[in-house]
Structure formats: structure tokens, C-alpha cells
């Protein structure tokens, strides 16, 4: 049965266009609400077994209905991260960075971390115990979870549970960022 009928009992072309448009708008809206506002960016190295660690975290997050964005392996240069990654970080309400011997020297992890800090996303470090002294000064003050090879899954569960309690509406500039934007006005 048509949802909208004209006086002759069948939908007009205009009605059909409106229905399709509403369907698309609704799908977009749902998609936006269900995926992006509940997304966590997982920053990790592509060396060694780090991708497996990221997948383990992804599974634990999924148990709390939180989607994880894991970057695909791609070559990156210098300090420029792709628009796709920027968008994914902006669309995520927080970032978990898995810090291992591989990731602390990874250019892409450092780029992602810098960008997330720049737009003031919450950052939760998971630090392998044997490298905790090598973590940079900017992350030293941020509380995270230490892990080793025997307890990573358990630590992921703790992190996922913690993340599930965080506010999700982080897609707007932070208070400080907004003030600087106001100061600039149209300049």
C-alpha cells in the first residue's frame, strides 16, 4: 500500500520523490547516529602483532556496542594524515592508542595522536609495561592502562567498560578551541 496517495489512489511522481528523499535522509541520520557518535578511533602500529592487539580491542568494544575505527595500512609521509583519517578521528568521541615498541616510533601513530590532541579528543593510552618509561611527555599525565602479553584481553575489557561510560557528544570544538575561534571572528 502506498504511503501517500493522490486523489486517484496511486502515488504521484512527486510523492515518490518525497518518499525516497525521506528514506535517504532517515537512513543517513540513523547511520550518523548509530555509527559515528559511538565510534572510537584505535591508533596502532602495523608492525609485529600490533594489528592483532587492535582487533582484540575492537572485539571487546563491540561487546559494549561501541564501534572501533581501525585505520587500514597505507603509506604515509611526513606529518600529513589523510582526510579519511582526519574525518575518522573527528567522528570519534575518543581515541585509544596502543603503545608498544612498534607504535612509539610509528609516524602514523604520532600523527594520529597529535591530530586527536589538537582537536581535543579524549585519549586513552594502553601502554605495554616494558615501554612505559619511553612514553612521551605529553602522554605522561594521561591515565591509561598498562598491559603485557598475558593480560591484554582483560585490559581491553576494562578499557571498553570505561569508554562505555564516557559522554559521546564530542563532535564539536572544545571550549578552548571555540573561544579562540570566537576571538578570530571572521578573520
Amino acid at each position: 500500500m502506498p504511503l501517500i496517495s493522490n486523489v486517484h489512489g496511486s502515488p504521484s511522481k512527486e510523492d515518490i520523490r518525497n518518499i525516497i528523499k525521506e528514506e535517504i535522509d532517515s537512513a543517513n541520520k540513523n547511520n550518523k547516529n548509530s555509527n559515528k557518535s559511538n565510534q572510537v578511533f584505535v591508533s596502532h602500529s602495523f608492525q609485529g602483532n600490533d594489528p592483532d592487539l587492535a582487533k582484540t580491542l575492537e572485539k571487546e568494544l563491540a561487546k559494549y556496542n561501541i564501534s572501533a575505527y581501525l585505520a587500514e595500512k597505507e603509506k604515509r609521509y611526513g606529518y600529513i594524515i589523510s582526510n579519511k583519517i582526519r574525518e575518522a578521528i573527528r567522528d570519534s568521541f575518543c581515541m585509544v592508542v596502543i603503545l608498544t615498541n612498534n607504535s612509539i616510533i610509528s609516524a602514523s601513530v604520532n600523527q594520529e595522536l597529535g591530530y586527536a590532541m589538537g582537536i581535543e579528543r579524549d585519549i586513552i593510552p594502553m601502554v605495554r609495561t616494558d615501554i612505559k618509561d619511553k612514553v612521551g611527555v605529553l602522554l605522561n599525565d594521561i591515565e591509561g592502562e598498562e598491559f603485557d602479553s598475558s593480560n591484554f584481553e582483560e585490559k581491553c575489557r576494562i578499557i571498553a567498560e570505561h569508554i562505555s561510560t564516557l559522554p559521546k557528544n564530542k563532535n564539536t570544538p572544545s571550549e578552548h578551541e571555540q573561544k579562540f575561534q570566537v576571538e578570530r571572528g571572521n578573520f
Partner: protein
Amino acid sequence: MNKLEEVQQKIKERGYWEIVLRPFQFQDKKFSHQQLRNWLQKHQVTNRGWYYPHISENKDYGDYYNVQGYVESYVHWSSYVENFRFYQSGQYVHYKGMQEDRINDDIPLSSQWNTSMQNPPPKQLFLEPIMALYQLTEIFLFASRLASEGVFGEQAVISIKLHNMNHRILRTLDFRRPGFYNRECHSQKIELGPFIKTPKDLESEYAKLAIDNAIGILALFDYTSNTLRDTFEKDQQNFFNKTFSF
């Protein structure tokens, strides 16, 4: 339209750099106008003939003055067209036209350089990679100097954008350099950062940050080379020693 508005319009009608340096945390009216002026004069980078930032004292070509909340400077002279504001919060915002796009404005760029060292500029819009490296080095060095004065507090946020880049080609004007030829950019805007850096980080990393980002820009022209970092390190050293050929 007044002179400032004319300059602002000129900057944005072609390729331009947008540079934002700011503290991580906002604090209104933290510094006096005089402090801002003193820092600009003390810390501008003077390795090239045209200092970064350029403070326009000559009213024929621009101006430099206090406004409530910030100091401002603008200039349009030869191939240089710029406008910056330095706010009392410590935020510094600078729009700078790409010199490459104004080669024949008023005084040709070629007359300022050693023409025997130059390739003819292409007809198409282009980016000169060595000039980009020098520009980035000036920005990060200037940021490092301001940070050392405590302008940004514990952490500085640095964001750099290059606008109107789509279909621009890579071209060096130094005839001795092979390569770089006709690689094309397919991004309208190139964004670098934001980088969050402590004053100490900036002091130790500013030179590397400039090179990393110059390499990153060239990658968006699909240009990569195993020797590029070495080349840029030598170019940057020449910049610091003021021994560059152009």
C-alpha cells in the same frame, strides 16, 4: 573597500598560507599590546631578506597598529601580500599569499633572485619546494621562539593550511635541480597539524618539523624520493647559514 580589505581580498584570490599558532588553553587579554609588539620584533626570523613575520612600517604599502584585543599588520609590496593578527590571548593568525603566484606583480620576482640560477617560471600555478621548506622553517622557528617566551604556556597548538592548491604543479626555479617536474596536486587545501608541542619540544624539533611537513606536502604532489630528506637538510642548513643561492 579600504586598503586592509583590499589586501585580504588579494591574498585569498590566489594560493595562500594560513598559519595559526596558539596556546592550548584560552586566556583572554593575557598580554599587553606592547608585549606583543616586542615579541614580534625580537623573534621575527631574519634569515631571508623578507623577514617572517613582516612588520609593515612603511605606510605606502601597508600598516602596523594596535586594535582592541590584538595588534595587526598588513602589506602588499611586489610579490608579497600578507596580513597577520597577534591577539592578546597569545593566538597568532597569519594569511600570506604564495609568492609563486605573484611573480610578475609590480617588481618581478626574477629581479630579486640570481637569474642565472633560475628556470623560467611555468605558466601554470606552481609551488616552489625550496621556498615551501624555507617558509615552514620560518614558521616553526618563529613558533619555537614565541614558545620560549611563554606566549603559549605549557603547550602550543600549531596549524598550517595551504589554500587553492588544486592542479598546482611542483616546480623549482633552481635550474641545477633535476626532478620535481610537473607533479600535480589534486587537493584544493593541504592541512598540516594541528601539532601540540611543549616549548621544549619545539626548541628541539622545529627544524625536523619543517622538513617532515615539506616532505608531506610534496607527497601530495605525488613526489617522493629516498634522497629528499638529505637534500632538504642541506637546504635548511643553507637557510640557517644564510648561504642559499636564492
